[in-house]
């Protein structure tokens, strides 16, 4: 019997991640920063991930040791740290080309872990105020974009409908009593209730 009682009986994932966040050693932090900088290179008016503290976001969403990492991004503290340690100091000292090759290998050989790492770095990076400010400056489509939906929203910069355009709309409907039988395509046939 597959008993899901345990999974469905526990607590809820904490909103905003776990506090205090998982603590990384300086070396582990440097490795994670180096990886993030290769996933989303800075430049063209955008900061690098290591410059905007993606670590504080990512480490909030790594499940602390002793708990099952059953919610997205499915990264458990012990395994996550072990993976960073495996990349090692060499990853930090490597050239960008070498780091990209290592990450490419990770993507190929351990696609599930790589996907979770990439996704949480994307979420972290694009949540940073400095990145949103860069988007406001650089991207015409993002000049109004804010770091979070609330409290402000976008009512002050929201376009309304074009009445002239709506005045041209045509359409029709039948009353219920006017519905009639259609010829049913032979391949569909019919079935009983």
């Amino acid at each position, binding site marked *: 019997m597959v008993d899901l009682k345990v999974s*469905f009986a526990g607590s809820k994932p904490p909103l*905003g991640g776990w506090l205090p966040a998982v603590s990384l050693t300086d070396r582990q932090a440097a490795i994670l920063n180096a990886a993030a900088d290769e*996933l989303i290179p800075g430049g063209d008016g955008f900061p690098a991930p290591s410059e905007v503290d993606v670590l504080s976001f990512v480490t909030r969403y790594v499940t602390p040791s002793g708990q099952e990492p059953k919610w997205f991004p499915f990264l458990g503290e012990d395994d996550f740290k072990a993976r960073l340690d495996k990349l090692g100091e060499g990853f930090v000292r490597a050239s960008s080309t070498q780091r990209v090759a290592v990450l490419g290998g990770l993507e190929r050989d351990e696609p599930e872990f790589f996907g979770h790492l990439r996704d949480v770095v994307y*979420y972290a990076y694009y949540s940073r105020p400095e990145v949103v400010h860069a988007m406001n400056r650089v991207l015409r489509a993002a000049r109004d974009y804010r770091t979070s939906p609330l409290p402000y*929203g*976008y009512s002050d910069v929201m376009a309304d409908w*074009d009445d002239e355009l709506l005045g041209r709309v045509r359409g029709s409907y039948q009353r219920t009593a006017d519905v009639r039988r259609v010829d049913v395509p032979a391949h569909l046939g019919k079935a009983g209730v």
Partner: protein
Amino acid sequence: MAAYTETDVLVIGAGAGGAAMSKRLSDDGIKVVCLEQGDWLHPMDHPHFYDGWELERHRAWSWHANVRMFPEDYPTTGNTEPMMMNGVGGSTLHYAGAWPRFKPVDFRKGTEHGVEGTIDWPISYEELEPFYAINDAEIGVARRTGDPGNPPRPEGWGPANRGGKVGHKMGRGFDKLGWHWWPADNAILTKPKDARLPCNDCGFCLGGCPRHAIASTDVTYWPRALRNGVDLRTNARVERINAKHGRATGATYIDRITGARHEVRADIVVVAANSIGTPRLLLMSAQEGHPDGLANSNGLVGTHLMFHSWSFEDFWFDEPLEGFKGPEPAVLYSQQFYDTDTSRGFVNGFSLQVGTALGAANSALGTNTGNITPWGARHREFFNSHFGRHALIYVQGEDLPVRTNRVTLDPEVTDSSGLPAPHVHYDLHENDRQLIEWGRRRAREAADAAGGVIDTASTGIGGIDGPPPGWHIMGTCRMGNTPEDSVTNKWNQTWDVPNLFITDASSLTTGAAVNPTSTLQAVAVRCAEYIKRRHGDIRTQTRTPGNADAPGF
């Protein structure tokens, strides 16, 4: 059993149907107890103020119970992951508030084609219309009147949500093709109502709304139902509906906090636990006189499950559209291809609905269709050319009510109370596959007509990031015309048990090609009105009257 409570009406489920029922009955002084296995949601439970607001959609705000795994949830097994929520508000806690009505033709699909398990509703659109109007007024719909493609609708509580650049661009595309389109009705306030704030176009609706602009029933019906004196019991997981001598006598529930069992005895029982929870509960309630489950002597409980057939079509354009602004549900819809035209090779039709896109991280991760911004050297160019230049067109088709698409009990899997999980089996009918593939091409035509498409991606049917067919859950205890073709009569009264009613989307006879909540609540309001006016008759009935014999209003 330590004790029991007696009441006039027991309502099971505090979501769309149960809340409407509880409030309307209590308006007239009818004594109501409502049992809800979840709890209240606090405004700060919403992710809108957090820097991880986009990520949270994959955790506590996942729409799949098997991903979310809240203590109040129950697992599902089978070949699909249905989208639902448990708590005061039910799945309205987690909907975007799209508020179309079914069209009249939807009530006569049996007459129109009768393919597969399709039957006519026992009522017409025109009979249901007054209850749509009552419900719209209760929840505070945002609407622009004048859609020539639908019967006239009353003025909304406020004007339609603004369409923004996405709405304007796609509206021009539909106009260029000469296709019908109209600003969407939404259950989202555009002016204040009660203690609820109007929408401020923040763009994130599928995580609920801390402003209470979206009409989830915890902020619409429940405050007034509680003032009326309804006894709403949260964390109360119903184990079984009890019956004796062919009539429901109440229910036994488990207090999820203490584990204690309690009994509520009632003259009338109303089940509104959603189209998976309701058949699950009826099947769990097998007992003496009802060996195959309650209200299931004809074997139809759980059958004819409908989800809507569906695909997401993402389009990116060469100009800013700023889809992170404005309401997340459809800003507009086209029903140009709603009615059956068999020259297309299938029956039924679909809506094309235009939606928006959340924020930067969602854009980087591929929006709705997994078109992920590559990592590394190509990241910046791709992201910069895609962010804020997107419009979603989703193809929402009416799926056929296939009898073998159904909810059963899984004896191998249990919830945290030891109750069997529902097993959900659903295969899309070939008709519905053809419909969606045809509709996808129309979506592309609309985007091309709007002009400037630079990239496209699609889920196809059941692709990346949802939807498998499984967005809306409908039809597993449908209302019908005879005890042989349905579970309830036209007043939502089960054929087998005269004082047992079903008032959630289970009761929808066909699923239409639009979002169902407006219609299921209208049906619940109509049923509540029937119970109010015919309470005395129902209390003494020993058999459920046929549609022609029922006392009516």
